[in-house]
């Protein structure tokens, strides 16, 4: 890895990213994302943040939020989009495939095991009772993860305004997500474009 040459813009994210990219093998991506999937009761996103940012330190808070944002703008399961983006970034297409497989294989088996139990015993009263308790905890976990991720955002009023608008639109006013994203995303990207050095 080349050290930054004199005169090169040290703040350039591209340079930083290239010089700090750790060497991560597809197998490591597979096991890491398997771990995230297996911890992900009630949702995987908080666990992805915990493992990728806090434990393994593959990504900074900011990189995590930005990658997730791209995965959310695109259709489909956000966490799968996030997995292929991260896998691809660190180990190319084999990495993307490994991360995605890690995320899906064990949950696939667990899901069918649940299906078999459900068919045999027929009642999911147990699952629903457990779910009501877990949901209260998971809600707290999601909120706490969101609060932690704010560390990655620059302290600029523009940035916080867009975050607040997204929260109010979807969380409080319950407007359709698609509408909120389609309205806010272009405006936010436009404002960021104006601020970016060219």
């Amino acid at each position: 890895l080349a050290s930054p040459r004199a005169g090169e813009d040290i703040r350039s994210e591209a340079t930083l990213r290239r010089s700090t990219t750790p060497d991560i093998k597809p197998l490591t991506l597979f096991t890491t994302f398997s771990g995230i999937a297996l911890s992900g009761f009630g949702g995987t996103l908080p666990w992805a943040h915990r493992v990728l940012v806090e434990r393994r330190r593959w990504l900074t808070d900011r990189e995590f939020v930005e990658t997730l944002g791209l995965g959310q703008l695109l259709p489909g399961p956000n966490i799968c989009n996030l997995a292929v983006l991260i896998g691809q970034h660190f180990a190319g297409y084999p990495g993307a495939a490994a991360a995605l497989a890690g995320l899906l294989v064990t949950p696939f088996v667990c899901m069918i095991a649940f299906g078999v139990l459900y068919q045999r015993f027929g009642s999911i009263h147990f699952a629903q009772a457990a779910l009501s308790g877990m949901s209260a905890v998971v809600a707290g976990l999601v909120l706490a993860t969101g609060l932690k991720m704010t560390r990655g955002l620059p302290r600029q009023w523009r940035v916080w305004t867009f975050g607040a608008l997204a929260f109010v639109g979807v969380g409080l006013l319950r407007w359709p997500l698609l509408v909120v994203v389609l309205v806010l995303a272009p405006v936010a990207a436009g404002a960021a474009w104006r601020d970016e050095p060219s």
Partner: protein
Amino acid sequence: VSHLQIAWALFVRLLFLSLIAIGGVITVVPDIQRYVVDTQHWMTATQFADAFALGQVSPGPNMMYITLVGWTIAGWMGAVAATAGMVLPPVLLTLIVARARSFSPQAKLGRAIRSGLAPITLGLMLASGWILVTSVDHRWPGYVATVLTVIVVLRTKWNPLWLIAAGAVAGVIGLI
């Protein structure tokens, strides 16, 4: 109708639905239910709701309930077809978009899109936490559990799995 035919029909349907699911696949749950329950009569509304609930309790992405839907209506072939139909089109699109020059972190447009989207992503994350709070915590023990979780996760290094397990137990014995 053979399992293969059902699995194929489900796969094709999900190819389209997954590609319109902007902001997460939770947005197309009603469309999937309408298709497999009301239009095709492959499963009952109760079976669908139960599969959805099991998907939330099971480890892994929440959208894995679709695997169980596929498995219920067309066995192993259905499970594979449903999962693939839900996941593959979006991730292929994601990889293509990420490769596009203008989206790369090196390009100005790519940087602007990434940094512009970041706060929106955060706002949406907090919004989904908030929606979860208001949809599940109908009694005070639920709110207490949520607030405690936020404090513990922000202040300690404890593994939140213990909290989730405690929540599940509290639910089963009727506390929450």
